[in-house]
């Protein structure tokens, strides 16, 4: 097939080939062709909005000279009449890696990690590659180009899809006839970035999403510093980055959540990225809109799940099932919300699938005009090239496709794709359309004849008296040749027809009977095809679109619950204040705050909740959690103070809901314990359904995770990174704080200084603006860190885990550090051999502020029970035990002025329990944050029913879809990785 295409391209229309006027010529005379080409009588889509019936497109030298109705055609014009055909601008794909060889992964034979960069003269990190230029690497691939041309594309913006900063793209035409001197429209058309490491380097940092974000930020800062001449040495990466600064900035985000993340990074440094989407943007369309990012959308929709096996399909989640139902509507929803987007073939399995998914998106309601814009004018605008590409006005490249009709109709044929005035033909444009139903009379017998399929290989079906006859059809150069076997198949006799298609669906010629006699033949088709397609669209029932919930999965809210005025009557109220535990007491919640506590309260507007026999407490606060995060450890370096969990909050984690069902209202999501200096925390309220950013406390206290012991010295896995002993750990701290102190002094001196995100954070610690929660086990290292802190004149805020805290509780009191510990975990590694469940009570008795934490998604939802264990192990009073999971963690997190107790004026973060909350028999019935009921045991029951119902509807729809012949995919079971401190992996 390919050969044919290339042969059909031989019609040379405009400028001389492969040469420019200043090039020497030794194979003949200089020829210059200044002829015009005029395509006339077309339905001409000058732009998606400007459509001209019977229009003329006049081109010369690869460009549009004029387009419209009343074009005067110059005498030296070749005229091509395309009556009845449509002309569209060719499509543009701005997220392409056309002609770029896949980056080769570096061999993984190296056992130990690589910490330093592989290159010198460049940035210190191998994943920062702004010095890459796609124009240097791309090799024009005519075969690949032809496939794209066939799908309607005429221009691609191609880049090297590797690394966090990937360097510049090149904008090229898919011009198979001319060389790169014509194809390259812009050799530096944009810069591409992503969160993904380069495959070509094993350099360990960054190994997490948040590490990538921090690294990007630091590059912006370093590049600025470099450009202002502050760095004496050569850095070719930063030079390139600075050169690329004013280009269009593209970002390979790939999902709704990552679009928001990239936007946050971009906003901080004045860059508005054009983002590659992931198809889930509709889930929080308002946030996407607010980002003001233009999007590039791949067209990937989940195949129908094969749900025939009820055992396997029970592993399917509602979230995945909904994706199948909703994702085809993503482009429509974005269009409805005025979000600008282009389409890309990136990551779609095949161009055929791209087309079918494009039609699916239109079927789901995307207006055709928007679809066309997303393929033509918008990509041109994003590139800032709307003056030369994307539409068919004067001066634009003569890049267009000629089709049999509506480009967004399944049955439409793309005849030709012209790029810079060079035609590639896929079907003969003049070929008459012979498809249709014919009634013919041959030798006094009536036959019906149906011709269908593609004109290059049409299919025929012939019936006589409803009996199907064997027949063969060939169609070439407007000549139809048909051989029909006779009814009696034993005879092996044929009637032959030879007819010319004089017009569309009109055949004229002769037929020859088996006996050799010839008769004239004419046949005209009824226009059944058109009728059929109409009928089809009518009967094709559009599947119902299931509404989005927040988050868009099981137990999500279809409408976010609102803050209410609530009056709890006659409950047992655990105040955590001087008043202690009050029986038969009322609590009024208003405007998100605790408004009144007392007896016989009333409020006309309040919803009354009978709390008789029940217990009302402050919400549980988990000082040490790893739920609701997409990454936990940036393990690529021994310090990662520059990263923050706030960057990677995953607000869709169902464990938020499960925690609410266990009475938890606030958590600190801590960085893991892979390195002595970890990352910054996210301190959040469990406002299930809200966006990631809305979970974080306003004016949040600033925290960072430190870690000691086996994990940071890599006792139980690979090695090669300092420190490998507890002795080294101390020196890491001394080194970093010494440098941070110098950094802070320089900063405060008023002299110029380069912002270092890592030292910035450490300086905050020195300045007592940021607090440390340190993962710790054995007494020696606990003692050590307090001494290091004292040397630098600050305090450790919290030791978390602190399983040998009981051995040094006196020293902790003296230092003024709190302890947040497990109730009864131990024996999971050597350093917890002396961990005892009495730890909390001993520390408490010694005067340490003690909290009980989880570090675990399962335990966190029953921290009330964990607190109760301190009654058993060490005899803590109920009132104090309860503070271990409420007021004390609030104190440790510097939140006790807002949460942690039931006190007038504090946030209304409260839980209504069925029993004494320290009892194994207690259930949270309502969990309220700032007056909003995020968990309600009765509503939960209704949700379960709704989930069941929606899932069975979706199963049914999937079965129907499969029966209609839809492509299916097998069910996959999804298991959450429950992240702990030790969760270290390459997270991207």
């Amino acid at each position, binding site marked *: 097939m390919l050969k044919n295409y290339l042969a059909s391209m031989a019609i040379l229309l405009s400028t001389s080939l492969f040469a420019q006027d200043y090039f020497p010529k030794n194979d003949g005379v200089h020829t210059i062709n200044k002829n015009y080409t005029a395509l006339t009588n077309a339905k001409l889509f000058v732009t998606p909005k400007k459509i001209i019936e019977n229009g003329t497109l006049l081109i010369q030298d690869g460009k549009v000279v004029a387009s419209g109705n009343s074009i005067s055609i110059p005498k030296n014009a070749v005229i091509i009449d395309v009556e009845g055909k449509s002309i569209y601008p060719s499509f543009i794909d701005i997220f392409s890696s056309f002609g770029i060889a896949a980056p080769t992964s570096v061999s993984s034979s190296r056992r130990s990690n690589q910490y330093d960069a592989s290159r010198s003269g460049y940035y210190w990190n191998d994943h920062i590659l702004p010095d890459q230029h796609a124009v240097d690497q791309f090799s024009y691939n005519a075969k690949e180009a032809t496939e794209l041309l066939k799908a309607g594309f005429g221009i691609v913006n191609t880049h090297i899809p590797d690394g966090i900063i990937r360097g510049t793209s090149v904008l090229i035409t898919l011009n198979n006839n001319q060389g790169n001197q014509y194809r390259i429209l812009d050799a530096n058309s944009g810069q591409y970035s992503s969160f993904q490491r380069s495959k070509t380097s094993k350099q360990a940092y960054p190994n*997490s999403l948040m590490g990538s974000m921090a690294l990007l930020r630091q590059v912006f800062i370093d590049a600025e510093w470099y450009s202002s001449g502050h760095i004496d040495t050569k850095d070719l990466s930063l030079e390139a980055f600075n050169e690329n600064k004013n280009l269009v900035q593209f970002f390979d985000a790939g999902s709704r959540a990552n679009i928001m993340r990239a936007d946050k990074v971009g906003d901080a440094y004045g860059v508005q990225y054009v983002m590659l989407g992931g198809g889930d943007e509709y889930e929080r369309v308002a946030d996407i809109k607010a980002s003001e990012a233009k999007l590039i959308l791949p067209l990937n929709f989940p195949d129908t799940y094969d749900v025939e096996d009820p*055992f*396997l399909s029970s*592993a399917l*989640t*509602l*979230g995945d099932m909904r994706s199948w139902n909703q994702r085809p509507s993503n482009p429509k929803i974005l269009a409805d919300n005025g979000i600008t987007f282009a389409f890309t073939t990136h990551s779609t399995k095949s161009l055929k699938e791209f087309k079918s998914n494009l039609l699916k998106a239109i079927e789901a309601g995307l207006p055709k005009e928007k679809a066309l814009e997303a393929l033509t004018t918008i990509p041109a605008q994003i590139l800032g090239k709307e003056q030369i590409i994307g539409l068919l006005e004067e001066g634009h490249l003569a890049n267009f496709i000629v089709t049999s009709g509506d480009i967004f109709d399944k049955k439409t044929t793309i005849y030709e794709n012209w790029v810079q005035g060079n035609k590639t033909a896929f079907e003969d444009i003049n070929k008459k359309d012979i498809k249709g139903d014919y009634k013919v009379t041959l030798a006094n017998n009536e036959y019906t004849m149906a011709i269908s399929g593609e004109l290059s290989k049409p299919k025929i079906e012939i019936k006589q008296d409803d009996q199907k006859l064997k027949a063969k059809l060939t169609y070439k150069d407007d000549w139809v040749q048909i051989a029909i076997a006779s009814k009696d198949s034993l005879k092996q006799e044929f009637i032959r027809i030879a007819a010319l298609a004089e017009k569309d669906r009109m055949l004229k010629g002769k037929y020859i009977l088996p006996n050799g006699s010839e008769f004239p033949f004419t046949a005209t088709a009824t226009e059944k095809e058109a009728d059929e397609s109409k009928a089809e669209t009518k009967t094709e029932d559009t599947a119902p679109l299931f509404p989005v919930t927040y988050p868009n999965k099981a137990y999500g809210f279809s409408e976010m619950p609102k803050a209410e005025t609530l009056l709890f009557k006659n409950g047992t109220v655990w105040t955590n204040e001087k008043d202690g535990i009050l029986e038969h007491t009322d609590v009024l919640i208003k405007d998100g705050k605790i408004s009144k506590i007392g007896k016989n309260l009333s409020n006309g507007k309040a919803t009354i909740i009978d709390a008789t026999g029940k217990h009302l407490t402050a919400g549980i606060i988990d000082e040490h959690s790893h739920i609701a995060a*997409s*990454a936990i450890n940036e393990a690529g370096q021994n310090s990662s103070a520059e990263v923050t969990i706030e960057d990677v909050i*995953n607000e869709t*984690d*169902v*464990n938020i809901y*499960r925690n609410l*069902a266990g009475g938890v209202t606030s958590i600190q999501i801590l960085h893991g314990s892979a390195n002595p200096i970890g990352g910054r925390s996210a301190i959040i309220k469990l406002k299930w359904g809200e966006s990631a950013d809305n979970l974080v406390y306003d004016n949040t206290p600033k925290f960072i995770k430190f870690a000691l012991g*086996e994990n940071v010295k890599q*006792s*139980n896995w690979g090695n090669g990174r300092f420190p490998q002993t507890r002795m080294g750990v101390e020196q890491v701290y001394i080194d970093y704080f010494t440098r941070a102190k110098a950094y802070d002094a320089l900063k405060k001196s008023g002299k110029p200084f380069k912002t270092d995100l890592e030292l910035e954070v450490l300086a905050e610690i020195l300045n007592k603006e940021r607090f440390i929660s340190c993962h710790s086990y054995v007494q020696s290292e606990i003692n050590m860190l307090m001494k290091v802190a004292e040397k630098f004149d600050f305090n450790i805020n919290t030791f978390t885990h602190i399983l040998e805290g009981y*051995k040094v*509780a*006196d020293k902790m009191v003296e230092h003024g550090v709190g302890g947040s510990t497990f109730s*009864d*975990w131990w*024996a*999971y*590694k*050597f350093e917890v*051999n*002396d961990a*005892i*469940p*009495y730890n909390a009570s*001993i520390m408490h*008795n010694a005067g340490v502020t003690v909290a009980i934490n989880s570090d*675990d*998604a*399962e335990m966190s939802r029953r921290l009330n*029970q964990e607190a*109760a264990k301190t*009654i*058993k*192990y*060490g005899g803590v009073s109920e009132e104090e035990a309860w503070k271990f999971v409420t007021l004390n963690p609030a104190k440790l997190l510097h939140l006790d002025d807002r949460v942690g107790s039931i006190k007038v004026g504090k946030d209304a973060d409260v839980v209504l329990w069925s029993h004494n909350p320290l*009892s*194994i*028999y207690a*259930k949270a019935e309502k969990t309220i944050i700032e007056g909003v009921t995020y968990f309600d045991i009765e509503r939960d029951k209704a949700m*379960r029913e709704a*989930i069941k119902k929606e*899932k069975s509807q979706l199963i049914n729809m999937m079965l129907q879809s499969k029966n209609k012949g839809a492509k299916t995919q*097998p069910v*996959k*079971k*999804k*298991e*959450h*990785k*429950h*992240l702990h401190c030790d969760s270290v*992996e390459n997270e991207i």
Partner: protein
Amino acid sequence: MKTFLTYIAFVCSMTVLAQQTPASKQTKDIAIIGATAHIGNGNTINNSTIILSEGKIVNIVDSDVVKLNLTNVDVINAGGKHVYPGFILPNSTMGLVEIDAVKASDDEKEMGAWNPHIRSLIAYNAESKVIETLRPNGVLIGQITPQGGRISGTSSIVQFDAWNWEDAAIKVDDAIHLNWPSNFSSSHAFFSNTRTEISANEKYDAQIKEIETYFKNAIAYSNGDKQPVNLPFAALENIFRGTQKLFIHVNEEKGIIDAVNFIKTFQLNNVVIVGAKEAYKTADILKENNIPVVLNRVHSLPDSDDNDYNLPYKTARLLVNQGVTVCLDSSGDMERMSSRNLPFYAGTTVTYGLSKEQALQLITLNAAKVLGIDTDYGSLEKGKSATLFISEGDALDMKTNNISHAFIDGRQISLETHQTELWKRYSKKLKNQ
């Protein structure tokens, strides 16, 4: 605080020991009077008298109805307190691993797939420091179960106060453990940052065929002259005779149904389903075939985002209400150190629908029945072993689980541990400063 002082002298000499010294044989009769006796079979006696003699419960009566002669008997006045049968922990690796991250201390999993001949008992470390921490919570008996492979090996049942594995053994080689294949296979899993996608297990049917073939071969072997000796086949012999139990570890609905069909095909009549997370969907089949269940740890997360948040909490109730015999295990992450929470797993099933006495059965008489030791253990009944404890309050609730006395076969065991010693030692240190 008073109790601390009495221990001070003791502590200094104790701390060097690896574990508590096992108690010696009961020499004198003991009467526990006035306590609420939780029999373990669903009943209670509010004001009970229990007589322990030569390691057995020789009498248990309602003191309000029957007055026993208590002369020459050590009397423990337990008025207002509660007496429970020792809690029983099935499907446990207690004593097979000491510290998770220290490979040298790990003996739970032998290499290879077909290991019926591998016996847990001989590796059981009766002196494990983890084991002694179970006793102060009332967990006194366990089934020590090897892990891994298709047939992981042979378990034995032990009591938790012994010098060595021989002393510890209550029932040697009680059961063989078969790990049923899963409908999903992680061998082709796709790992992302926070979740794992697991494909359907294409080999599931073939793996079941493999089990069938293996069992057929084992039967053929036992029908022949048994030459040459085949250790794994020989180890399976008692399964076919019905004199040894087969524990099939399986969680998925379809797996359970297939396992039950397998049991029927091979006419195995002494089988237990372990794990059983989805058994609530197949309760009728289990009941009909009289197959009991060892239910996976109650304090677990649901497997699917869509599941009820409390599904693991209420599964026991769903099964019990449909007439299935259920007991509870502690398997999962942090298994051994969490096993002392067994009573609280039972407590949670009360929160989600069972009565307290029903919940108690799950870790006492039901467990004894499932393990085949109910003639001697699992309830406070005349003639059974005096393996029981006294708690100040409700032992299923951590708030009130506070044990003053515990007996195994009438021996009053130490409730001290490495942990209580450190507690006392450092409490004293801090107090004296």
